[in-house]
């Protein structure tokens, strides 16, 4: 947990002051949007909350619903 916070804090410190100084607001917005997603994923991973894997969804969609599958 501590490591996670450390790493994310580090990512934040490295990018944000530079962005603010260079007044790139659009980049700052994009950065913080992705940073929130990353942070949420990180927390869910560390607290072992099951993160739905997109590939499982696709597999379910193709195999079970559409039935397109290669025979074993």
């Amino acid at each position, binding site marked *: 947990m501590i490591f996670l916070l450390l790493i994310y804090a580090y*990512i934040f410190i490295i990018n944000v002051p530079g962005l603010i100084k260079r007044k790139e607001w659009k*980049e700052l917005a994009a950065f913080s949007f992705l940073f929130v997603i990353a942070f949420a994923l990180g927390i869910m*991973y560390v607290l072992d909350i099951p993160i739905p894997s*997109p590939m499982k969804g696709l597999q379910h969609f193709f195999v079970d619903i559409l039935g397109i599958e290669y025979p074993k």
Partner: protein
Amino acid sequence: MSIEKGKISCQQLLFLFAGFIEGSALLIDFTVGITEHQTWMVILAGLIISTPVILSYAVLAKKFPGMNLVQINDMVYGRFLGKIISIYYIFFFSMTLSFNIRDVGELYITFLMQDTPFIFFLIVFTVTCAYAVIKGIEVLTRISHLILVIGLFAVISTFILLIDQMDFSNFLPFFELPFIKIFQGIHIVSMIPFGETVVFLMIMGCLNKSEHAVKNTFFGLLIGAASLLIVAVRNTAVLGKTQTIWTSASFQAIRLINIGTVLTRMDFLIGIALTILMFFKCSIFLYVMVVAVSQLFGLKTYEPLVLPLAAIEVIIAATVFQSPVDHAMITQNAGIIYSAPLVFVIPPLSLLIAKIRGLPKLERGKET
């Protein structure tokens, strides 16, 4: 106005292509499980099928000089549809990137360092890729020929060292497998090593003089495919029928090298070569994804997005599959089906549309 200011020369494009395709020398183990001793045929067929498509990428990139894939989509398919297709591409990039990162992790967790936690490999590997992306595409293209040399050296030296244990009668019962398996094999090969080169649509934008881009793409493709063929031939000749039971056939073949008391335990050297190749491939993927996302958001520089996207990729890579078996099974079915249109349909389609509508009409600005 494309984000990437860096310029790469055509010769470097050749090295980029060859190194990129060779990076997936580790991944042909998916096809080995299905097409046992006919893997080399499947690779050849895959190469023949995907070569025209990949050359169409080069032509498309030449038609839109200095523009990357997201901009091409916007111009060709209009603003709204272009955005959706670009998001579809970004999803493909992030998924394939997490597969590759996970592959490196699995390589280390099953073969070389068993007791270290899985997430550690992913984090350190992605951090290094992020460092490479921060340095810019020019640095990556500059070291691409070094990486190609390392890859070729690893492939050829293992082939030579295993020559006396090779039994070439293992190839013999040609055309023994049912056609559906061969088709699946071709589909996998034309997707994993060759289909992933759709990534280069993003990078070809910054070619400084693109008149013989097509020629270089073709040669790069040939070198990459040749090294894949050598790996497939070596595995089948040395392991014969047993190559289907190992998790990674090429790694077991390397562990069989036993010449004198010195050249016996080589698997770490090949591990190094594979890691470097996968590093090259993953950093290109990460670079492409970051540029695509920042182009989608309309940013000026892609630099701030590198680390958050890398963090997201690490988490996705850690959670997308449970085990190597799960990984192999899903990529052999859903993985290649969902990405087939991306590779085979959309680029040629946009090339066709561009020809019909006589794009790129740059002088009157972007009217779409």
